[in-house]
């Protein structure tokens, strides 16, 4: 049974997605328990696979019994095992959280929502688990297409934002496909492990260089790396609450995973250092992404839009960790993929809960929110501390490794940018925390609102509060545990050359 887990991780949510509309046709309220049940299976299977990898090392699964260079191979190693658990866990929590958000934003479309959610999770899991370049493209498009469908249901600007996302996302995926074509032309193989063995002899071939360039550009578009981020703020801000909760933390991180795969598994690290100066270019793009993301986030008053700009800066962190090309840097990047997914997820959960309770998303709406929604705001404070890099929370540890990496590479500007960005995050979050916790009670005669006088506690419903508290707890627990995670998983995911 357990040797079939890699296939089950993909097949169960895929088949579950096709059955969801049939179930939702007659019994709409059954969709949610069904989706939760379906999503619990990949979570258990991926936890078991990760443990298996930790115990015995990476293993692969030949789909349909066809041997690797010809057939499609599912390959689970340390990095993909970690990503599988992350995606499955966030998917399950997002599905659990979605119910109140659906009744508010997309009432009556439960079956559509859960179908697309399951397809989205299938696509993301598939990108991570597959060992075949073309298969990555197919799964990338499965997740993107379901993402387009989900985002289009949002508020006023959503269809327009979706259309722009479709156009730009298709360019990204097509560039990726062209990269696959160029590599296939030169090598005649699509299997990542097979290609990794063939490619070193061809590193100076122009075809390979062009293929690599297409790969990097395509993935950077999907990742929202500055200056290719233009689709991201609009799409994630206008998407319905439960949708941005699901897509925003995962899509960019999985694209970062593809970048790590291409740069360190498909190509040897020295290709990215010596043959083409891609690491340097990516590093400086990351610096600009962090600075622009921070400045743009400071300019926003809508907190959801602010978080999307923070995400652009966070993508910059991950790319910077990749670009310094040493062990602490890449360790930090992988750790930050996990931590940042949890932090962004928790932020969107909090935003979803706040807007469900009828409070606006502007910063001035946060006044006295700590009395109305104490638990939600407590989780918000934990994420804020983690974002600024205050030690017990997990954000500190990944940032520590990232900064160590930049110092080791002697890229002082990178280090200064990282430190400065933490300060910017501090300003961003503390202006909200100040508004919520430290705003003076209104005692003037004017502006006297009877509702404001004694503020009633009005917490989010349990189906929203439980994921928020779980994620906040995970953010705190991941911090002290990060040493263990690095020792057990991430240090093996970093290539041995470093």
């Amino acid at each position, binding site marked *: 049974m357990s040797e079939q887990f890699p296939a089950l991780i993909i097949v169960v949510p895929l088949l579950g997605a096709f059955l969801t509309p049939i179930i939702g046709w007659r019994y709409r309220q059954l969709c949610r328990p069904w989706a939760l049940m379906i999503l619990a299976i990949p979570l258990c299977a991926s936890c078991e696979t990760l443990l298996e990898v930790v115990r015995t090392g990476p293993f692969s699964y030949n789909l349909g019994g066809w041997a690797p260079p010809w057939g499609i191979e599912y390959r689970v190693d340390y990095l993909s095992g970690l990503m599988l658990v992350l995606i499955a866990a966030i998917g399950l929590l997002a599905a659990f959280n979605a119910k109140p958000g659906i009744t508010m934003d997309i009432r009556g479309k439960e079956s559509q929502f859960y179908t697309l959610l399951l397809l989205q999770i299938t696509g993301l899991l598939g990108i991570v688990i597959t060992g075949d370049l073309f298969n990555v*493209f197919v799964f990338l498009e499965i997740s993107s297409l379901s993402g387009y469908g989900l985002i289009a249901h949002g508020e006023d600007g959503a*269809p*327009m934002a979706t*259309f722009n996302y479709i*156009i730009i996302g298709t360019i990204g995926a097509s560039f990726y496909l*062209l990269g696959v*074509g160029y590599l296939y032309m030169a090598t005649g193989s699509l299997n990542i492990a097979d290609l990794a063995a063939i490619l070193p002899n061809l590193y100076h071939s122009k075809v390979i260089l062009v293929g690599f360039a297409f790969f990097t550009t395509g993935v950077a578009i999907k990742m929202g790396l500055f200056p290719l981020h233009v689709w991201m703020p609009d799409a994630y801000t206008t998407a319905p609450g439960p949708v941005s909760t699901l897509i925003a933390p995962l899509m960019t991180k999985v694209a970062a995973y593809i970048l790590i795969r291409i740069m360190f598994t498909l190509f040897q690290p020295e290709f990215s250092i010596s043959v083409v100066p891609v690491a340097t270019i990516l590093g400086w793009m990351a610096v600009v992404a962090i600075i622009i993301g921070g400045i743009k986030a400071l300019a926003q008053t809508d907190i959801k839009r602010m978080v999307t700009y923070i995400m652009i800066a966070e993508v910059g962190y991950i790319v910077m960790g990749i670009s310094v090309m040493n062990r602490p840097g890449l360790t930090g990047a992988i750790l930050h993929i996990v931590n940042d997914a949890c932090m962004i997820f928790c932020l969107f959960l909090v935003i979803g809960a706040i807007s469900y309770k009828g409070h606006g998303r502007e910063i001035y709406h946060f006044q006295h929110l700590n009395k109305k929604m104490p638990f939600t705001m407590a989780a918000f404070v934990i994420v804020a501390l983690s974002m600024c890099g205050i030690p017990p929370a997990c954000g500190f540890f990944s940032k520590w490794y990232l900064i160590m990496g930049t110092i080791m590479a002697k890229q002082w500007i990178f280090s200064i940018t990282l430190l400065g960005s933490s300060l910017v995050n501090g300003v961003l979050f503390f202006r909200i925390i100040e508004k919520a916790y430290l705003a003076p009670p209104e005692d003037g005669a004017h502006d006297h609102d009877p509702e404001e006088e004694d503020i009633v506690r009005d917490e989010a419903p349990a189906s929203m509060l439980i994921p928020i508290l779980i994620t906040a707890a995970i953010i705190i627990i991941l911090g002290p545990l990060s040493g263990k995670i690095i020792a057990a998983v991430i240090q093996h995911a970093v290539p041995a050359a470093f």
Partner: protein
Amino acid sequence: MLEYILAKYNFWIYVVLMMIGLYAMMGKRNLVKKLIGMNIFQTSIILFFVSIGVKKGGATVPIIMGDGHGHGQHLIQAADYLNPLPHVLMLTAIVVSIATTGVALATLILIYKRYHTLEEDEIMAIRKEASSYKTLG
């Protein structure tokens, strides 16, 4: 120069088509034209893939002739047949491209229902007006 272009004409065709598609996606202000540009863009990549499976020297479609009882030709020369794998990959890519077009068209219907136009400039103007009303109260 001309020989250089003619020797690799399949690449030139794909690059030219791709640039037409990119121009339409970036330069046109009508959303349907953008969508058509996207289709041209995707088609150019499909043509590129199909063309790399072709072999010179009389290679033909990869149908292995047998006697109907599972006993095919014993010596199969790979050089006699086109490479079918890029073509098979493109079947999937065509499906993906059709699905993308479908989602994009559905989104265009949503946009048209909301704004009654598909010109990007007009939509921008409508949205700007709406947001200025909102801030005025």
